[in-house]
C-alpha cells in the first residue's frame, strides 16, 4: 500500500494542485474597481448625458461660433454653432483642434519667475500673490518716476471687451503705447479700403451669390479672413443655386488650396497682380461696359495698362486678359478679391486698390454677390493703436521700461534682422501673459498663465461680419484645469494694487463683472432693438444659450462711393520690389500660412501636426515647393535637403516637387521652426520668416512676406520629408470622375 514517502509526495502534489486551482480562480476575476460618487452632486451634470455649451472659436480671427460637448465636466467635441450667422454650424480643421489647446500637456501650470539669465530660460514657480506683487511693484516704480509712457502693452488682435479693458487700463495708467500685433492682421486691406472706398471696417465679400469670382492671390477657402464663411459661400456658389454655377478664376504665382478648386488658374508673375487687375479694368473701360460719367478720366488713368503692353510684364497672353475682362464685366454680379498673397508684397496696398478699382468699374460694390459694407460695431473699436515698429524703435532707444505681452509671439513671427531679440534684451522687465512656453514667453522675466478659450469668459465682434452686426460670447465650458487666470482679472487685480486713479476708474473685481456690466450698458442703450427681452437677465440667458447676439434686420448699408482722386497716388506701373538682385538670387520666394499651423500658433497641437497638408500631404515638418521642371534642370529629387539662401538668412528645407508653381518661384509654408513650444512643435522644421528683410511698410507698419529673392543649392545630407501620399496620378481609373460644364447647360 502507500509508503510514507509516497504519502508525503501525494501531500506535496495536493498542495500544489490546490494552490494552482486557487490562482486560476484568482486570475480570471475582473479587478475590483471603486465607484466614487459625488459628495454634493451638481444639478446640471448627469453622468452619461452630455451638456452642450455655446462659445467662441479663437483659433483664428474669423470669430466663428462653436458649441462644445461637455460630458461630466470634460470637453469632448467642438462643433459649429448652428445658429451663428458666420459659420452656420460648420467648422474648419483648426476650429476642431481647439480641444487640444485646452488639454495640451505642455501648458504652463503656475506663475513662473526667471531664475538664471535670459538665455538660460530657467524659471521658478511662484504663487499668484507673489507674482502680482512683483508686477504691481514694478509698475508702481514707473508711476513714481512718472515716466508712465515707458510701459508698453503688446497683445494680439482682440476685438470686444478684452481689448476695451486693455485700453482703459493703459489710459488710466497714463501710457499711450497699446500695440496690437499679429502676423496676419489684414492692415493693408483695411488701409486700402479706407483710402479707396472710405470705409474703415472690413466689407463682406458675398461669395455665395456671385457668378464669377476673380481671386487675386486669396486663399479664401483655407486661411484668409473667414475661411468657414467663404467655404459656405463657395459651396452655395457652385451647387447651391439651381441651374447656375459660379466660376472661380485664381490669379496667383503659387497654386493655393482655393486655386486648386478654381476653374482656371492664371500663374501671373509675382508682384504683378495689381497690374493685371488694372489691365482688366482698362479692357472694361475700352469695351464700353462702364457707364459712369468720369469714363474719360478713368481712360486717362488706366491708359498705360493696355493688355498688349502688360501681357509680357505679367506673363499672361493678352487675349486671355480680354476674354476674362469681358466675362467679368458681363457676369452680373462678379466679385474680385485681393487676398493675403497679393497684400504681402512690399507695395501690397497698390495691388488691393487696383482690385478695388476693378470692382468699382465692374459695378460690384454695394450689390449682392459683390462687396457689401458692414454696419458700425456696437462695442467701440480700439482706435489709438501703434504698430510693432514703434515698439522696436523705442526698445532700441531704451525708451521701454516694462513690456507686457499677451497671446502673441513676435520673436517667432518677426524676421531675424528686425532684431526683435536685441530689442527685448534692453527692456529691463518683460511680463508675458500666455498659456504656452513659446519663444516670446521664454524671453520674459515673469510669466502669468492665462486661461485657454474653453475655460474663459470673453466676447468678439466679428469682423468682417456678414452684412449685419454680430457679437459672439465666449463662456467657460469646463472649469480651469490649472492655476491660470483670465488676462482681464490679472490687469484688474494689478489696477487694484496700483491704487487711486486706476482703482477708481476700474472698480470691478474680476473680468466677468466688467464684461456683464458693459453688456448691460449696451443693452440699456439699444433697448428698442430687443423688444422681445424686457429684462436684462432674460436677454443675457438668451445670448448665452444662442452663443451671441445678432439681428439680421438691422442691415444698414452704408452706401460706398468710390474716392477717385486719392486712388491715383497708389497706381504704380512697375511690379513689386523684391530684395536681392536677379542673377545671384534667381527665385522669387512666396510665403503662405499653413492650413494647420496658421502663423505658427497651432504648431503645438498634435492633430494639426499630423493633418496631411491639403496640397502636398506632408506632415510633421516644413518643405519647399519647387516646380518639377526647374528641379529636373537642377538635378533635385523629391526629399533632397536644399539650402535656401536670401540676402538676409539661410535655411535647410527638404524639397517637394509641386507642379502648381511657376518655374521662377519657390514657396515655403509658415508655422514650423519653433525653438521652445512644447514636445510637438519644439525644434521641428524651419521658420522661413528668417529669410525676410526686416523693413516694414510706411503706410501700415507691417512686415511684407513676399519681399525677397532666394538662391537654391542642393546640400549633402538627406532631407526628412514625411509624406502621406502615394502617387497622385490617376492612371485613368475613373476615381474622380468629371463632367464638362457646357454639357450641363444643355440639358
Amino acid at each position: 500500500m502507500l509508503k510514507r514517502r509516497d504519502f508525503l509526495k501525494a501531500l506535496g502534489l495536493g498542495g500544489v494542485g490546490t494552490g494552482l486551482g486557487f490562482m486560476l480562480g484568482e486570475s480570471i476575476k475582473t479587478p475590483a474597481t471603486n465607484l466614487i460618487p459625488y459628495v454634493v452632486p451638481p444639478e446640471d451634470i448627469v453622468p452619461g448625458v452630455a451638456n452642450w455649451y455655446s462659445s467662441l472659436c479663437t483659433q483664428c480671427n474669423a470669430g466663428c461660433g462653436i458649441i462644445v460637448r461637455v460630458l461630466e465636466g470634460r470637453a469632448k467635441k467642438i462643433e459649429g454653432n448652428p445658429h451663428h450667422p458666420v459659420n452656420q454650424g460648420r467648422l474648419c480643421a483648426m476650429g476642431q483642434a481647439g480641444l487640444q489647446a485646452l488639454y495640451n500637456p505642455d501648458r504652463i501650470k503656475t506663475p513662473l519667475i526667471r531664475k538664471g539669465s535670459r538665455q538660460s530660460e530657467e524659471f521658478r514657480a511662484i504663487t499668484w500673490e507673489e507674482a502680482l506683487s512683483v508686477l504691481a511693484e514694478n509698475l508702481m516704480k514707473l508711476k513714481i518716476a512718472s515716466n508712465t509712457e515707458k510701459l508698453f502693452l503688446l497683445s494680439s488682435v482682440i476685438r470686444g471687451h478684452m481689448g476695451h479693458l486693455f485700453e482703459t487700463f493703459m489710459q488710466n495708467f497714463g501710457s499711450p503705447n497699446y500695440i496690437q500685433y499679429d502676423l496676419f492682421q489684414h492692415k493693408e486691406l483695411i488701409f486700402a479700403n479706407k483710402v479707396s472706398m472710405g470705409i474703415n471696417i472690413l466689407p463682406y465679400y458675398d461669395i455665395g451669390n456671385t457668378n464669377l469670382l476673380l481671386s487675386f492671390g486669396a486663399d479664401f477657402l483655407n486661411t484668409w479672413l473667414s475661411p468657414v464663411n467663404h467655404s459656405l459661400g463657395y459651396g452655395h456658389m457652385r451647387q447651391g443655386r439651381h441651374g447656375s454655377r459660379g466660376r472661380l478664376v485664381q490669379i496667383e504665382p503659387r497654386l493655393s488650396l482655393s486655386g486648386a478648386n478654381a476653374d482656371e488658374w492664371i500663374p501671373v508673375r509675382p508682384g504683378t497682380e495689381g497690374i493685371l487687375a488694372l489691365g482688366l479694368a482698362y479692357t472694361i473701360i475700352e469695351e464700353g461696359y462702364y457707364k459712369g460719367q468720369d469714363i474719360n478720366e478713368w481712360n486717362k488713368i488706366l491708359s498705360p495698362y493696355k493688355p498688349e503692353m502688360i501681357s509680357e510684364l505679367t506673363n499672361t497672353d493678352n487675349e486671355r486678359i480680354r476674354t476674362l475682362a469681358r466675362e467679368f464685366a458681363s457676369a452680373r454680379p462678379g466679385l474680385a478679391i485681393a487676398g493675403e498673397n497679393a497684400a504681402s508684397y512690399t507695395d501690397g496696398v497698390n495691388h488691393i486698390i487696383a482690385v478695388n478699382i476693378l470692382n468699382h468699374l465692374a459695378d460690384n460694390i454695394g450689390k449682392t454677390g459683390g462687396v457689401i459694407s458692414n454696419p458700425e460695431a456696437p462695442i467701440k473699436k480700439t482706435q489709438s493703436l501703434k504698430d510693432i515698429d514703434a515698439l522696436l524703435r523705442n526698445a532700441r532707444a531704451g525708451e521701454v521700461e516694462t513690456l507686457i505681452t499677451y497671446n502673441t509671439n513676435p520673436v517667432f513671427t518677426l524676421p531675424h534682422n528686425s532684431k526683435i531679440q536685441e530689442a527685448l534684451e534692453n527692456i529691463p522687465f518683460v511680463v508675458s501673459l500666455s498659456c504656452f512656453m513659446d519663444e516670446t514667453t521664454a524671453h520674459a522675466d515673469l510669466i502669468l498663465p492665462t486661461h485657454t478659450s474653453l475655460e474663459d469668459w470673453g466676447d468678439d465682434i466679428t469682423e468682417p461680419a456678414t452684412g449685419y452686426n454680430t457679437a459672439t460670447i465666449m463662456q467657460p465650458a469646463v472649469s480651469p484645469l490649472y492655476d491660470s487666470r483670465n488676462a482681464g482679472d490679472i490687469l484688474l487685480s494689478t489696477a487694484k494694487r496700483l491704487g487711486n486713479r486706476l482703482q477708481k476708474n476700474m472698480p470691478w473685481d474680476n473680468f466677468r463683472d466688467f464684461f456683464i456690466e458693459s453688456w448691460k450698458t449696451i443693452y440699456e442703450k439699444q433697448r428698442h432693438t430687443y423688444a422681445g427681452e424686457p429684462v436684462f437677465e432674460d436677454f443675457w440667458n438668451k445670448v448665452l444659450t444662442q452663443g451671441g447676439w445678432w439681428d439680421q434686420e438691422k442691415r444698414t448699408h452704408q452706401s460706398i462711393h468710390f474716392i477717385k482722386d486719392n486712388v491715383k497716388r497708389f497706381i504704380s506701373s512697375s511690379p513689386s520690389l523684391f530684395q536681392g538682385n536677379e542673377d545671384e538670387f534667381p527665385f522669387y520666394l512666396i510665403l503662405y500660412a499653413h492650413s494647420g499651423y496658421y502663423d505658427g500658433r497651432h504648431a503645438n497641437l498634435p492633430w494639426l501636426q499630423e493633418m496631411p497638408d491639403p496640397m502636398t500631404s506632408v506632415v510633421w515638418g516644413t518643405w519647399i515647393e519647387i516646380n518639377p521642371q526647374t528641379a529636373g534642370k537642377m538635378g533635385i529629387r523629391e526629399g533632397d535637403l536644399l539650402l535656401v539662401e536670401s540676402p538676409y538668412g539661410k535655411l535647410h528645407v527638404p524639397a517637394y516637387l509641386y507642379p502648381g508653381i511657376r518655374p521662377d518661384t519657390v514657396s515655403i509654408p509658415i508655422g514650423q521652426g519653433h525653438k521652445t513650444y512644447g514636445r510637438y512643435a519644439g525644434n521641428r522644421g524651419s521658420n522661413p520668416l528668417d529669410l525676410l528683410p526686416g523693413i516694414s511698410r510706411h503706410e501700415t507698419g507691417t512686415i511684407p512676406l513676399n519681399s525677397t529673392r532666394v538662391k537654391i543649392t542642393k546640400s549633402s545630407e538627406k532631407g526628412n520629408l514625411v509624406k502621406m501620399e502615394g502617387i497622385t496620378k490617376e492612371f485613368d481609373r475613373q476615381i474622380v470622375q468629371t463632367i464638362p460644364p457646357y454639357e450641363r447647360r444643355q440639358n
Partner: protein
Amino acid sequence: MRKFFLFSFIWVATFISGYWINTSWFSDKQPAQPIAFSHRIHAGENGIPCLYCHIYAERSTAAGVPGVQKCIGCHQIIKRDAPEISKVADYWERKKPIPWIKVHNLPDFVYFSHKRHIRAGIDCNSCHGNVAGMDVITRVSSLKMGWCIDCHMSHNVKNGRDCWTCHK
C-alpha cells in the same frame, strides 16, 4: 504505473477543489464595502424606491450612486449615533466621497444603457436579484455575454443579436 495514475488523480482533484474554494469563499460577488450599507433595511423594510437614490437610471446609461449629501439628508436626524451612520457623518464633515466597491462591473467596451432597459419595462430585480432582501449586495447574475444573449433571445428584442447593440 498504478502509482502514477493515483498521483495524477490526486493532483487533478486538489486543483479543482482549489478553484472551487476560490470562486465560492473568495468570490468577488460580494465585496466588502467601506460602510455596511444594508439594502434590506432601506429598500426592504422602509420601502424606499430604487430610483430615489439611483436617480440617473431613467435618464442615462449609468444608474449613478447617491452622493453623500443624499445619505446625510435623512441620517442627520435618523439614528445619528449608530456606528455605521457616524462613519457617513465623518465622510460628510471631511467632504470626502464614500469609496464604494463596484459589484456589477461591466468591461468598458460594453454599451449597457439603464435607460433603455427601464423604459422597456425590465424590473431592476430581474438583473440585480432581490436587492430588497440583501444585507450585503451580491451579484446574482454572471453579467457575461451568454447571459445577456439569453435574455435578449427570450424577449426577442429587435436587433438584439446585433453585435453593435451592446458593443462600443
